[in-house]
């Protein structure tokens, strides 16, 4: 059941990214480009997605997940260097190509060689990240 629900969730995510136009890098870069021909679509996508998610978080109260286990713990209050540094690096890459992890997979079948190069290099970055993180934490302790 767990895998079936995961397939359903991924399918809804993929359908939503396609229908909303978020697989189009021009729409993403258009949202980020406040000095160009600004495209507000991404704000509607974010807003639309937050509504059902907000309801879902309310429904987790006093319940357990359908397939068992526990809901994720309360979010940490601590921000930390890695959160800020990581978000800045991610944002720079997001702006450069107009792709983030979800849409990069959703558009993989129709994004040509560029789509493959993006997912390949993203995987490389993800593979290297734990070692980079350890090195950085050792060189410059976070707190």
């Amino acid at each position, binding site marked *: 059941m767990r*895998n079936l629900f*995961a*397939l*359903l*969730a*991924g*399918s*809804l*995510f993929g359908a*939503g990214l*396609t*229908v*909303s*136009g978020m697989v189009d*890098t021009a729409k993403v870069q258009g949202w*980020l*480009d406040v000095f*160009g021909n600004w495209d507000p*679509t991404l704000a509607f*996508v974010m*807003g639309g*997605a937050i509504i059902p*998610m907000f309801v*879902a978080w309310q429904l987790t109260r006093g319940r357990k*997940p359908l*397939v068992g286990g526990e*809901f*994720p713990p309360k979010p940490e209050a*601590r921000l930390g260097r890695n*959160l800020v*540094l*990581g978000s*800045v*690096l*991610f*944002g*720079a*890459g*997001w*702006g*450069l*190509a107009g*792709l*983030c*992890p979800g849409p*990069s*997979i959703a*558009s993989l*079948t*129709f*994004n040509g060689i*560029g789509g493959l190069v993006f997912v390949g*290099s993203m*995987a*490389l*970055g*993800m*593979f290297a*990240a734990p070692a980079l*993180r350890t090195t950085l934490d050792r060189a410059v302790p976070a707190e």
Partner: protein
Amino acid sequence: MEQDWIMGLIGGVLIGLGGAVYLLANGRIMGASGIIGGLVDGSGWSTAAERLSFLAGLLIIPALIVPFYKEVDTHLTSNLWVIAAAGILVGVGTRFANGCTSGHGVCGISRLSLRGIVATVMYILAGGLTVVLFRHVMGVI
């Protein structure tokens, strides 16, 4: 163009429903970078079947929908160096920050997580600055 925001809103609700299913059924946060990253670095191999099922839906459904569109242009740059640099930045960055647009943006903001809100503000600012710099100043993208 004027119907773009309606499609954006509809698509957004679908994305949120996906996140709601993943949370309420499986008890997990729908974060694309975490789901992929756990498979890549081995930290999530114990839940590999669940992760792969999610990614299968994410990959296949768009491929099935797209043929119904008259034309699909994702406007991805043809400069593979820019794409490779962007991919590495996205890969490293999302793992350092422990989340991306779906995990921090959609799932984090909707539970009023301070980390999710700060991360989202930071990556939008960095993304905006990058587009302005590389498009309007340097003319690369």
